[in-house]
């Protein structure tokens, strides 16, 4: 991935000590609204995707509002990621209140590592949630599908903090590269760490068909297959609510993937159950699912298994 010279996030990072969070959030909203107005093709794609899912329940004005919210929320979430290294623990805890932490604690106590299975609902807020958990002392990191993630430090950021890893996104979230090769994930689980992954992505060698939003769509089996292999607990994580002040990190009931004689059906059952929970939260937070940015989201998702492995892994 091409090295970025500087980003708007760097500006926010620089201004943070002198500009209040509330002002930054307002600027992010304005930025989002500008993108909503100027990016017509993207706006049309998102509008169409949202309308396809909820046209029966929402009128045209509501879908316009949800579309505009998508753009605003996208900028607000990005701002939160860029600012995360600057925010104090109390600030992070206020912005990302966690529900169900006792479930994660119980899963960790089982001693076989934990897969924290997030999603692209309030995308990138999963990173912020992991950063918060790390600050609270949890041994957790994020399995990243690319060697250089989108929020890698720009040249300006590297100049601002030479030699320091504290302000670098990847180190902040305990990020590590693991895609086709899942051994880095398994090593951490065997070391009783927690690994955060997304369960609704396309970087996958295998998919299971799931009834989702009224059609049959492929969902990655990676996390469940790994959990089955290692005996690790899986804790679903969903970041719900509108950014920046209405977010909640919800940790749901942990489960294992049985290691019986029918691996495909065992994995399928868990993938379907997790996707049902995603669907539930998605329908209550429609403008928060990042995948709406994909043109014809649901049709595109349906075609993911037809992509070559090279395309899926963007090698």
């Amino acid at each position, binding site marked *: 991935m091409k090295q970025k010279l500087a980003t708007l996030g760097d500006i926010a990072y620089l201004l943070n000590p002198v500009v209040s969070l509330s002002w930054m959030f307002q600027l992010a909203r304005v930025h989002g609204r500008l993108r909503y107005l100027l990016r017509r093709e993207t706006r049309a794609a998102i509008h169409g995707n949202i309308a396809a899912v909820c046209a029966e329940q929402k009128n045209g004005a509501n879908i316009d509002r949800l579309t505009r919210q998508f753009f605003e929320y996208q900028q607000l979430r990005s701002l939160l990621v860029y600012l995360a290294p600057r925010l104090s623990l109390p600030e992070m805890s206020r912005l990302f209140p966690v529900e169900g932490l006792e479930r994660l604690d119980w899963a960790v106590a089982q001693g076989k590592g934990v897969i924290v299975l997030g999603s692209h609902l309030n995308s990138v807020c999963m990173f912020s949630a992991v950063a918060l958990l790390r600050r609270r002392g949890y041994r957790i990191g994020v399995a990243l599908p690319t060697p250089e993630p989108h929020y890698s430090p720009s040249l300006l950021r590297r100049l601002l903090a030479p030699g320091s890893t504290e302000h670098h996104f990847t180190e902040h979230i305990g990020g590590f590269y693991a895609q086709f090769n*899942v051994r880095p994930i398994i090593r951490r689980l065997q070391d009783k760490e927690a690994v955060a992954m997304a369960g609704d992505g396309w970087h996958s060698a295998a998919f299971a068909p799931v009834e989702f939003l009224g059609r049959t769509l492929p969902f990655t089996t990676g996390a469940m297959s790994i959990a089955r292999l290692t005996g690790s607990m899986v804790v679903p994580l969903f970041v719900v609510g509108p950014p920046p002040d209405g977010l909640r990190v919800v940790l749901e009931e942990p489960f294992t993937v049985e290691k019986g004689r029918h691996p495909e059906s065992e994995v399928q059952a868990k993938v379907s159950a997790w996707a049902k929970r995603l669907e539930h939260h998605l329908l209550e937070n429609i403008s928060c699912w990042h995948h709406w940015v994909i043109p014809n989201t649901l049709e595109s998702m349906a075609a993911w298994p037809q992509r070559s492995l090279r395309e899926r892994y963007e090698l």
Partner: protein
Amino acid sequence: MDVEASVRAFIEKTFLVDKDKTISTDESLLDSGLVDSTAVVELLTFIEGEFGIQVEDEEVVPENFETIEAIVALVDSKRHA
């Protein structure tokens, strides 16, 4: 048992549902869905233990596990390195 026979036997015993089926040497294991990322880890454990080799993380790429032929080539290259 030679490398190919050993690898084939492991794959057929571990991942093949239809035990009457035979996998050809150049048949795609990944595109057919027979082997996924987790199965590759199981394969790695097998070939590292069976042949006394160490496969580095950067060598765990689809090309090296696409076919039985590719896996055999990987094993041979590590044994003769």
